[in-house]
């Protein structure tokens, strides 16, 4: 189905009850994994609406990624497999691995499709928080980053440490593989983005996203960080989201912002919400048509859509809770946010099917 941003609508709300921290659709499109302040990860089955709690972490999880076979969801959705409003999903997904990193520094491996997944591997990966987990395009390598100012690479197959990338001087908030698989970016509290050459393990350049950082001299504290990060599928653009213009760090007074980098040139472009919303951007993604979508929140939440040619966003969706994370469905037509109110909200970016007549 064609994406029609202006038609974005709530498709379903998946209630957990305890505040959510992160969310990811699995590659088959059938499950939505949401991590919570209760230290669990909840697996919502979009087909059956079954809810399974993954118990194994003893702290909050924000980083989640998958190791799977390639392309489980066909480019065009298969009507037979459609759930709710045309969202594509694979009825019988191939087994995949979920990797989740928590705020105690532990990286857990799970069989994502099991009826009641148990962690089958635990790696004490970082001192302090793991803030993000990413898997390389060839599915061989896992990258993690955290408050110990380190980026680490692991073997996806067996959890062996492969490399430690040192150089950040503040908490590392996010990490992402370039679609080519040869480069990795990591982004920190101060808005420094490092571009690592994976063949040498050396940083080759730095991108400047310091607009996301501020030392609030009123409260004597740093605020910032790249809260969400994504490459477009062609690898020509890198999008980062966070908070900027902070006037009061301790009340969260500031504005969400997306910085869009031209990958080749490293040139940034600032994408701002057109409303004067106060809060933090927590997730960013590229739609197949090149549209950039961001989500975040302060008191409430928002989803913003940008045409990369425009600085101000073209469409805004109001979310009834602070959106603390965002994930794009593999069929490209839906996204979900992790709500501070304990609910995952799934939005379809397509025209609603004609209303079924009331009986």
């Amino acid at each position, binding site marked *: 189905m064609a994406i029609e941003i202006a038609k974005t609508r709530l498709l379903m709300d998946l209630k957990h009850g305890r505040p959510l921290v992160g969310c990811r659709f699995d590659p088959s499109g059938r499950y939505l994994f949401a991590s919570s302040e209760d230290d669990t990860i909840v697996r919502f089955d979009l087909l059956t609406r079954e809810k399974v709690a993954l118990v194994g972490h*003893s702290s909050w999880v924000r980083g989640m990624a998958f190791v799977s076979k390639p392309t489980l969801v066909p480019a065009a959705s298969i009507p037979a497999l459609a759930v709710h409003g045309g969202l594509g999903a694979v009825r019988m997904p191939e087994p995949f691995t979920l990797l989740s990193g928590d705020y105690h520094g532990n990286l857990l491996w799970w069989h994502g499709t099991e009826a009641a997944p148990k962690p089958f591997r635990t790696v004490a990966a970082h001192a302090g*928080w793991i803030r993000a987990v990413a898997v390389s395009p060839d599915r061989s390598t896992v990258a993690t980053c955290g408050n110990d100012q380190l980026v680490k690479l692991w073997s996806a197959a067996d959890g062996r440490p492969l490399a430690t990338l040192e150089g950040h*001087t503040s*908490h590392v908030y996010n990490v992402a593989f370039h679609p080519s698989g040869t480069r990795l970016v990591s982004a920190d509290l101060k808005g420094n983005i490092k571009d690592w050459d994976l063949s040498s393990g050396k940083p080759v350049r730095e991108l400047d996203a310091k607009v996301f950082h501020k030392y609030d001299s*009123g*409260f004597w504290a740093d605020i910032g960080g790249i809260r969400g990060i994504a490459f477009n599928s062609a690898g020509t653009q890198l999008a980062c989201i966070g908070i900027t213009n902070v006037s009061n760090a*301790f009340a*969260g007074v500031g504005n969400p912002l997306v910085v869009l980098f031209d990958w080749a040139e490293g040139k940034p472009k600032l994408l701002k919400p057109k409303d004067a919303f106060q809060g*933090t951007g927590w997730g960013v993604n590229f739609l197949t048509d090149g549209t950039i979508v961001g989500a975040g929140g302060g*008191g409430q939440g928002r989803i913003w859509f940008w045409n990369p040619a425009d600085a101000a966003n073209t469409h805004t969706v109001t979310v009834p809770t602070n959106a603390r994370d965002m994930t794009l469905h593999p069929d490209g037509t839906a996204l979900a946010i992790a709500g501070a109110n304990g609910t995952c909200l799934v939005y379809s970016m397509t025209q609603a099917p004609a209303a079924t007549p009331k009986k």
Partner: protein
Amino acid sequence: MNNCNYACGTADHTVNRRLFLGGAAAGLAGFAGMTTPAAARELKSAQKRMLVIFLSGGVSQLETWDPKPNTDTGGPFRAIPTSVPGIHISELLPEAAKRMHLLTLVRGINTKEDEHGRGATIMLTGRRTEPGLVYPHVGAVAAKLLTDKDAELPGHIQITPRGGGGFNKEDAAFLGPKFASVTLGDGKPPADLLRPAAITTDAEREAFRKKLNDRFAKSRRSAQTEAYTESYEQAAKVVSRADAFDASREDPKAADRYGRHDFGRHMLLARRLLEQGVTFVKVSHTNYDTHHENFDFHIEQLGEFDRPFAMLLDDLKERGLLESTLVVVMSEFGRTPRINDRYGRDHWSKAWSVAMAGCGLKAGAVVGKTNANGTAVTDREVNGGHLFHTYFRALGMDPTKNFYPAGRPVPIADPKAAAIHEILS
């Protein structure tokens, strides 16, 4: 592996907090004013002292002294074991945890006041705000009760994060300005303490002033004129000891240990002042008012607090001063067990904690208890009044005695409360 020392001890962080200038200044001045452990030990027997570390804004009890991990209110951090078996505190205080055997935790505080100013009043005066009544701050009371008559330095000093020092007349209330605090803004000495270069003939003019006063006093004197002329002698003594206010005269190795950031420098200055005989020092560390991203900000602030606090405990212990120095880590209140939608915690006075050390308090002890998720005190509830009584009992004073401002009796501590006797020796 577990011990992520959360201090963000990076170079650019310390630039943010302004660089510690110790090295250069000390190089010129030498270490003439440095107090040796031996000299400090001599001080210890004579006088009791108090150090308050005030974590401004309201530090989270759940991220410090009373963690509730893996509950709906606990947040993401671990509780870690301490040097005292059975007592756990937040992983954000790894250095303090190693010194739990020196600490006393009061976990059952309910001050029933969620507003910053009034909360601070409760914690600093041991009483709730009452219109028309102003009570002296703990530092003024300590200075009044404990400072030797012949002391050369002021008895009540506070070190604040920002510049703008000076003399405060508010906080001594009826005890009088003599016991009001001298503020060392960002640890700098008060205005006019150092003699300006323009004054080159101070000795001559002082001699002339004395001659005039002696002549006047031959026929006319009163307690007030004596106090007035005496204040110049006292000021001269303070001026002559201005280096007591200069932390850059401390060993650079100590500065390294405390951390080369503002709070480290302020804590080192606090140690120096206590060793030089100042009765009461309050160091404020800011800020903890984390309505937003409580966890990130507590990592940052406590990461800065933990080490200098531990170093100061070590130094006081090593120099034999801890037994005569009462150390209290307080705040205006704690923070809500409930985590709000912006990962913040809000103001919360119903169930929070204070840490103390020294002066004969039962070390390695915990008094008071909160329920499983920290939303209520379940055992040995105390308020600011109880704490105030406890401080002065520990300092060897009877807080049920009275002051007599304008001839009227005012009990030193709130008569509705009493000391927490379980933690007194």
